[in-house]
């Protein structure tokens, strides 16, 4: 099997992540923050260690600014519904995943778009125009989940900081692949999943709150048990507990802790270099095939294409028949797919575990499919 769907979730997971999951279930499997007995405290210890590691990984040294969720989608919903009020003007891009697009619509925000395909200066100019029109926030992805396109999130953050505008960043496709420092990059709220570029397992994500972000600005999305202050009618005032109602996904948090260790040890730049090398090779080979259309021809961590005359889902099924896992369709990003001009596309998503041999085999198979 060749797994090229790492933009959906990374596979396989490093051995240390598997060990962390097994170890937690066997030795620490209490409910963190829900008791004082040894198993609850063992679980709490694991959770706190992960907060510290995740905080440090994204450039902050306060673990209380890491708020765990069930995934990046919940983190984005928490950030958007927590900070954006009905009729607020919000700047966003034309390539957003539904985990940004749908909450913004549901929150009743008035959205102003910038063109993510433009040059950096044009993007910043469009954002600046939006701010002049009264936008109070920018909510956008750091990297597309469809095309090998990285937005200038550092420059966007700097502009937002200069203009006093909130910056909520979707780090789903960037965390662990591109360097993100919440403080230096002027991100107010960074939303991340555990199970993609950080090599954890599904069921966990986080909001990373900048030290400069005023937490009184964010309302909780979920209300429920926090393990403390049970007599109080409201959620706790301070993060992380303010934004963490209910039992934490402790097993997934243990996995994230190991995943962060793995990424740090391997090196974010080494991971990115490996993924881009695989992508570059496939891109160069597909570009020689006139029966294949590649969209946005850059090296990146994802690559999107279609075989001319074959619906993308069918191409996906044919590849699966040869043991190659890809995702076909619209990738939960309908706005991005307006630019493919077709009914969806086939996406390849790479990880540090993909090999040149896998890329060669893929090229051989897709070449055969395209000519059959």
């Amino acid at each position, binding site marked *: 099997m060749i797994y090229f769907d790492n933009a959906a979730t990374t596979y396989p997971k490093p051995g240390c992540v598997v060990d962390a999951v097994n170890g937690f279930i066997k030795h620490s499997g209490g409910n963190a*923050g829900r008791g004082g007995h040894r198993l609850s405290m063992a679980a709490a210890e694991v959770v706190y260690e992960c907060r510290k590691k995740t905080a440090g990984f994204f450039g902050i040294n306060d673990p209380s600014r890491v708020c765990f969720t069930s995934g990046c989608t919940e983190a984005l919903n928490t950030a958007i519904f927590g900070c954006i009020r009905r009729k607020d003007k919000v700047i966003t891009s034309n390539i957003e995943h539904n985990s940004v697009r749908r909450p913004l619509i549901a929150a009743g925000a008035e959205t102003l778009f910038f063109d993510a395909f433009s040059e950096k200066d044009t993007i910043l100019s469009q954002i600046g125009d939006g701010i002049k029109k009264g936008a109070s926030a920018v909510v956008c992805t750091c990297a597309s989940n469809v095309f090998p396109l990285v937005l200038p999130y550092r420059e966007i953050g700097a502009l937002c900081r200069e203009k006093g505008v909130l910056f909520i960043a979707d780090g789903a496709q960037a965390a662990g692949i591109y360097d993100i420092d919440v403080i230096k990059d002027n991100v107010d709220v960074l939303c991340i999943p555990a199970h993609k570029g950080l090599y954890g397992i599904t069921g966990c994500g986080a909001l990373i709150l900048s030290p400069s972000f005023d937490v009184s600005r964010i309302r909780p999305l979920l209300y429920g048990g926090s393990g403390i202050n049970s*007599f109080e009618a409201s959620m706790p005032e301070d993060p*992380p507990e303010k934004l963490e109602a209910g039992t934490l996904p402790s097993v997934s948090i243990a996995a994230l802790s190991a995943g962060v260790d793995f990424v740090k040890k391997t090196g974010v730049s080494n991971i990115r270099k490996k993924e881009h090398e695989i992508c570059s090779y496939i891109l160069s080979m597909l570009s020689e095939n006139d029966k294949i259309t590649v969209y946005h021809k850059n090296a990146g961590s994802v690559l999107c294409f279609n075989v001319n005359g074959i619906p993308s889902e069918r191409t996906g099924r044919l590849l699966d028949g040869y043991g190659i896992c890809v995702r076909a369709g619209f990738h939960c990003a309908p706005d991005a797919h307006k630019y493919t001009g077709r009914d969806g596309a086939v996406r390849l998503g790479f990880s540090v575990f993909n090999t040149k041999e896998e890329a060669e085999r893929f090229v051989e198979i897709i070449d055969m499919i395209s000519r059959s």
Partner: protein
Amino acid sequence: MKRRFFALSSLTYAYKAKDALDLYGIKSKIIRLDGNETKRGCRYGIETDERDRGAARSALIGSGIPFTEP
């Protein structure tokens, strides 16, 4: 005997407090507080040796970690 502790606003802050005391070389233990030890329901606290209490208080204040002492 009545327990002596510093009450923190959350479990996370209890861990932050422990980290802060560790930096000052003060041994401490995170404990779960009874509902009747606080007025707000369940909470977590930090227990230290009575001899270290003053130093621990100063360390928590110096580290900017809010706490209460019942």
